């Protein structure tokens, strides 16, 4: 068995900082870049992890790479400063837009799978890369309940062309793959056949809930067995450098998080980190 570089991880959030710091086998985590103040020292728990040699990746959520308008360079520069502060060789962001003109969506929104949108994303990614000064950028496809009408490319073609033209790595969110497939009524593993899995920088795993006729990728519910099955399917095809649980609220007791992390490790066939 080829060994994963970093194994199973969990996203660092202030509410669960103590739990994350107490994980004996932890080698990989992520922090929301917009929550860091780069003019001030790192939060205590995070500084301790960096000191222990845990890889901490800044994860941006507000850059709006998929927006028709050019990204603001200071947002990309912030990602760069976060990477320097954390000693991270990589930052990540989404293939999505979060604002349009004067309106903030407060959420990651899908982009149309058209040539026009593809060119806009590539231009924004290149602009971000210029501000990142050699720090690698990994791009994450999102989950959405709807698609734009009249796509010109399949999801696999669209994502692969963005990666090819920008040289970016792929942050594959396996829960997003599951959510989109379930809501479209497609087999969840189908997208895996279309993506360049060898370009995966790391993988997100998260929970969700079926509500009102849709599967919602909430990050506040347990990871369902179907997502764990897709983790297993992915790890049968490739060995991703890390599998990271994203939990963003309604934090359960430590024992529940431990069981979830152990279940992810078991699905991958990797050692537990708890």
């Amino acid at each position, binding site marked *: 068995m080829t060994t994963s570089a970093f194994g199973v991880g969990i996203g660092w959030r202030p509410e669960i900082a103590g739990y994350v710091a107490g994980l004996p086998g932890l080698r990989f985590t992520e922090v929301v870049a917009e929550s860091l103040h780069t003019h001030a020292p790192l939060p205590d728990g995070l500084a301790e992890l960096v000191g222990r040699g845990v890889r901490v990746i800044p994860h941006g959520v507000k850059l709006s790479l998929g927006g028709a308008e050019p990204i603001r360079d200071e947002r990309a520069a912030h990602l760069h400063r976060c990477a320097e502060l954390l000693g991270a060789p990589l930052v990540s962001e989404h293939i999505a837009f979060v604002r349009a003109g004067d*309106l903030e969506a*407060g959420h990651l*929104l899908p982009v*149309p799978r058209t040539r026009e949108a593809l060119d*806009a994303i590539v231009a924004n990614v290149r602009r971000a890369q210029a501000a990142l000064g050699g720090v690698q950028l990994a791009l994450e496809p999102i989950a959405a*309940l709807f698609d*734009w009408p009249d796509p010109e490319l399949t999801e696999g073609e669209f994502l692969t062309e963005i990666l090819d033209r920008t040289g970016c790595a792929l942050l594959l969110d396996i829960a997003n793959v599951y959510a989109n497939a379930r809501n479209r009524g497609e087999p969840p593993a189908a997208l895996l056949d279309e993506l360049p899995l060898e370009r995966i920088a790391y993988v997100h795993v998260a929970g969700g809930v079926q509500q*009102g006729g*849709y599967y919602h990728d909430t990050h506040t519910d347990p990871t369902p067995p179907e997502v764990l099955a897709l983790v297993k399917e992915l790890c049968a095809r490739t060995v991703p450098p890390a599998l990271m649980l994203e939990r963003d609220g309604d934090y359960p007791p430590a024992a529940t998080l431990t069981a979830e992390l152990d279940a992810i490790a078991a699905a991958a066939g990797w050692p537990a980190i708890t």
Partner: protein
Amino acid sequence: MTPPPDLAARQRALVAALVAGGEVPAGFDAAAVRATTAALRRKRAGEVAARWPFLAASYGDAWVPTFAAWAASRPPNGSLRDGWDFALAAGDTLPGLAREELAAREAEYAYDGESAPVPRRRGLLSRLRRR
């Protein structure tokens, strides 16, 4: 024949439908867009509850629907401002605990209702103390 609206205009129309009470643009699955709108309001209610725990708690189980109804045609401004604007809009109906939380925020920040609240003490020492 007029050219189709450009990407910027189409993206703005979609965001307006999701957060500002706009019409769902033609061609979209309207039910799925509306379901997204509802999910966004629930998520926003959760984010405001994390930033304004006493405000949210003082409404109990009614918090999410009450906040979601208020937020229906108001685009998000971040959880600090969203909670603040909600509390001000509630006026005399604001429960006691929430009133205390609002007073504490007013002591900490100057907020004109139009732009981001500004911390009242901007010295390095106070910034360090807050961490």
